[in-house]
């Protein structure tokens, strides 16, 4: 078996783990607010992209409904992490007492939200898994809109369109990147395991996979359950970073961004998903000064708001034209491969 280095190496060696922790610690201490928030959003997007990759990249269950999952998980966790006085006195939710009058710490809330997301995901998956291609996409798209509609129409439980505020700021580098590395590690291990290979087999050729004795429904549900669990957690992390939750928080645009991450990174590649997350997270924010107008040699370049979004669309199309398989293709980043490539280029 080929040994994959890169991410797994980090998990394998205590020194690697120590180094990562040290780097995170230094980043946490030294990064200014903007870059820290961007770094956190990058981490959250990594979680979202890697978990979406399980369904969309491997099992070929192309979902654009993960926004609805984030919403479900986000609300489930939010109802427990919000301060009691906010739930009771300020917005007056009509919830049973055991929800209304408690505030729980972050970890149980994360797990709870993850489980709720997973359950909702599997409920969606059951009818949707019979469908393929465009119909699956359509059903998941509808699921997204349905979840928004439900959140809007249950003001007693969700505060409707007004949304929820006053979250404690739980999300930090440790939560985000701890979970991000966990997701990456799980994904890489999964890829080599029987379950992961079953996902990929289903994605490649469903009939063949069935002939090989893979229980389609079971593995599709595994894929969806796992993917939605971490997607929901990603949503909860987002909520406790931006401190806002409202029905339209995870709109189609956000889902589209996550889908874009895995497509330009390379569908099916975990490291591709991470690279995609980095590009999409950073792109509009890092380039933002361009559209805000600036001075060059005393000449003021005017505002051109929207330019970065336009550029992102153009770059996206260009990447898909020039490298349709994405940056990483289906492969993974590995130190060995890099070393090989470097030595080859030296030899030449």
């Amino acid at each position, binding site marked *: 078996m080929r040994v994959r280095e890169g991410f797994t190496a980090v998990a394998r060696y205590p020194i690697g783990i120590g180094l990562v922790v040290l780097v995170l610690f230094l980043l946490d201490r030294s990064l200014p607010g903007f870059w820290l928030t961007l770094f956190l959003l990058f981490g959250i997007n990594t979680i979202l992209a890697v978990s979406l990759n399980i369904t969309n990249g491997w099992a070929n269950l192309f979902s654009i409904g993960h926004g609805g999952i984030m919403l479900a998980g986000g609300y489930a966790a939010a109802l427990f992490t919000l301060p009691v006085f906010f739930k009771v006195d300020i917005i007056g939710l009509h919830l049973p007492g055991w929800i209304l009058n408690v505030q729980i710490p972050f970890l149980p809330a994360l797990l709870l939200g993850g489980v709720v997301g997973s359950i909702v995901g599997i409920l969606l998956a059951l009818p949707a898994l019979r*469908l393929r291609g*465009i119909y699956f996409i359509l059903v998941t798209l509808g699921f997204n809109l349905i979840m928004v509609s439900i959140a809007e*129409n249950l003001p007693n439980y969700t505060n409707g369109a007004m949304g929820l505020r006053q979250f404690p700021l739980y999300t930090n580098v440790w939560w985000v990147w701890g979970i991000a590395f966990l997701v990456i590690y799980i994904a890489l291990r999964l890829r080599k395991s029987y379950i992961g290979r079953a996902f990929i087999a289903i994605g490649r050729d469903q009939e063949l996979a069935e002939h090989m004795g893979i229980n389609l429904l079971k593995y599709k549900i595994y894929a969806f359950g796992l993917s939605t669990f971490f997607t929901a957690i990603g949503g909860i992390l987002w909520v406790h970073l931006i401190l806002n939750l409202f029905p339209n928080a995870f709109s189609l645009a956000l889902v589209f961004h996550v889908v874009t991450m895995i497509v330009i990174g390379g569908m099916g590649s975990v490291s591709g998903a991470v690279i995609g997350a980095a590009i999409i997270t950073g792109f509009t924010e890092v380039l933002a000064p361009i559209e805000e107008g600036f001075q060059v040699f005393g000449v003021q370049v005017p505002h051109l708001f929207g330019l970065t979004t336009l550029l992102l669309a153009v770059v996206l199309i260009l990447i898909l034209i020039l490298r349709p398989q994405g940056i990483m293709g289906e492969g993974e980043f590995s130190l060995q491969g890099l070393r090989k490539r470097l030595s080859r280029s030296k030899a030449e």
Partner: protein
Amino acid sequence: MTYFIQQMLNGVCWGSILAMLGAGYTMTFGIIGLVNFAHGEIFMAGAFAAYFALHVAGLPFGVAAVLGILGAIAIGLLVERIAFRPVRGSGMITLFITSFAASIGIRTLFVMLFTDRAKPFSMPAFLKGAYLIGDLFIFKKTIAVVIVLVVVGALLMYLVKKTKTGIAMRAMSYDSETAQSMGINTEKIIIITFIIASALAGVAAIMWGVSYGRIRSSMGMMPVVDAFIASVIGGLGNVFGAIVGGLILGIGETLFVAYLPPELIGLRTLFVWIVLFIIIIVKPSGLFRANVK
């Protein structure tokens, strides 16, 4: 009874526009397998072209309508050129993403150029007013919209069913390679398909402007989802199905708002999608057999 008929008329008007959008949407899907998210922006561009002709240049309505359709075709061909042709054959997902990117790009460009403020789209004098039968208002614009739908729909069906180009389109949708060996120029057929689909979006845009009196840079965002639904109800790739699907959707949504308690109107989205899910799961091919694909 008057109330019911009045609401039906509202539904038919809304449904006709969705039908027109859905028909164009379903054509690009049926013939070249493209889930064209940018269809909404093609539609929007048509509305803007007509708006500029009508309100800025002060041209007569007929000319503005033609220019609107031409505007939609221009953006449609642009989408084909930048987001479809270079990635053709790379699978549905890639096409889906490029069309979404094109959609966002074009929308952002329009917001940058013309802002997202609502702009007026005034009705020509001959469409203003209504025939009053008892308490029932039958708007001239509704009549016009329905006539346009029927005429354009019939032309479209004739084109797809009877003409050489239509047969070539359908042959191509089934097996592009074999179609080519019959001497069918698939490049040309794709362009023609885009032109027709965009023209339909342009017609829908004019119908929209006349019916609802306002246009915006982001007006294409939501209707494209409705068009998608309409074409799935009718069976993706089926022009006639998409028209029926659009009418069903429009009338259904309208009656939902008309008869349910107002507190439940917000659940309209839920209702539409649940109906759609049932259709997809029970009869995935939609209500009608595909006749383009």
